[in-house]
């Protein structure tokens, strides 16, 4: 465990070194700002109130998309398990959602909705298949392992749900939920960039690029990456708190 932490720290150090070496090779602040310049830009962002409202706006849009996708994923996965027809009906739809280009969806959604709603919907459409598939796979696994037992002893549906399916599916789903939430953040930011959403991290990135504020653009990128890590960690933390029977 300790060894793994050291390797993870080394990987971050490696990225930092690559940045420093690349900056030295390029020597052009408009193409690649220095680490320290970016660090200073980050400090300025933290002191700026509009950054925080953009930060919470983006965070809120990501979380709203995730929660809706989570509820829809759980409902449809349960229905798919109860009825093979629902599973067959959803299968091509989920495949289409997986392959459709995100940018094309955002452009279409911008015609139908507005810059605040489009990133939420596109994130929802991208992460729903991932959550649905994760939940369906978990339910199938639990049913395969313990379904015959519950069936043989005629265990009531409520007991099956609360004592078997929910607790046994939760570890797998929560393991993947953090990563999916982090992916959702990435999609939300992309949607905001294309939609030029007011008070959003994506919108701020778009502005920084327009005005060639490269340190700010890079600082915002680093902050999105850090936020993504935190969201992934949040999923693992939830898993640790909720799934005590595994430890």
């Amino acid at each position, binding site marked *: 465990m300790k060894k793994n932490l050291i390797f993870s720290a080394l990987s971050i150090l490696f990225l930092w070194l690559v940045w420093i070496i690349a900056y030295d090779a390029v020597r052009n602040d408009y193409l690649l700002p220095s680490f320290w310049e970016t660090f200073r830009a980050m400090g300025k962002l933290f002191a700026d109130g509009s950054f925080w409202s953009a930060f919470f706006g983006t965070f809120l849009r990501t979380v709203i998309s995730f929660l809706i996708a989570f509820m829809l994923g759980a409902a449809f996965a349960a229905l798919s398990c109860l009825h093979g027809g629902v599973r067959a009906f959803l299968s091509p739809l989920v495949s289409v959602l997986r392959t459709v280009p995100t940018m094309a969806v955002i452009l279409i959604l911008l015609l139908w909705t507005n810059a605040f709603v489009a990133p939420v919907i596109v994130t929802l459409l991208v992460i729903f298949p991932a959550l649905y598939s994760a939940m369906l796979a978990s339910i199938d696994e639990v049913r395969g*392992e*313990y379904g*015959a*037992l*519950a069936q*043989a*002893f005629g*265990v009531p549906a409520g*007991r099956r749900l609360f*004592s*078997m399916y929910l*607790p*046994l599916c939760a570890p797998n789903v929560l393991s993947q939920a953090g990563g999916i939430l982090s992916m959702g953040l990435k999609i939300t930011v992309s949607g905001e960039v294309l939609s030029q959403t007011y008070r959003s991290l994506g919108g701020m990135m778009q502005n920084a690029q327009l005005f060639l504020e490269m340190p700010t653009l890079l600082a915002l990128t680093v902050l999105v990456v850090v936020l993504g890590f935190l969201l992934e960690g949040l999923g693992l933390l939830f898993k640790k708190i909720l799934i005590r*029977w*595994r430890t």
Partner: protein
Amino acid sequence: MILRSVKKTYGEKVALDIPQLEIEPDKITAVLGESGAGKTTLLNVIAGALPFEGSVEGVGKVSYLFQSPTLLPNLTVEGNLRFVLPKEEWEKIPSMLEKIGLAGRGSSRPRELSGGEKQRVAIARAFLYPHDVLLMDEPFSSLDLSLKKSLLSLTAELWRPRRETVVFVTHDVHEAAVLAHRALVLKEGVILTDLPIAGELARDFFSRSAEEETLVRALTGEEFS
């Protein structure tokens, strides 16, 4: 329990073909046979878990003892028993845990139990569940000899007070000879032999060698009775 004109086919293949079979109450009936002989199909037919031709009468409520303990890892020992039992049966759990030698382990999780202890919980579950017929599908097949012997004894101990109808599928002749009152030998879905058994008689019929018996005694350190 009576099976009349029971036939189960998978395409062209006849998995089970039993013109008439009466399974006596108060007895343990062993069903022996090689893989694919139709043993598990017979259990599924009795349980009504498969569509089949013919009829099975007088089954009533069925309880199961599977090959693997199949305990939910998120629940405690007591939780696993509660999971399958009607609420009115929950009060019987502590005394059953005592009988199976797991008194005070009710709050343990399955991962804290040994393989034998897990199977004990599965046996307790099968006997606690209100039933008229108990179906056992090779529950001792993956256990080592000494554990097998102790769990066979436990099963017999739990069976004696109620003497319910038990259908016990196994491929181990010796298990059948130790536990059952009657042995049915299935081959390609047909009952080849129907034999009342009592120890030596079964061993004669299935021709277990004296060397094998010596090995069994040496491995368990005790004699089977």
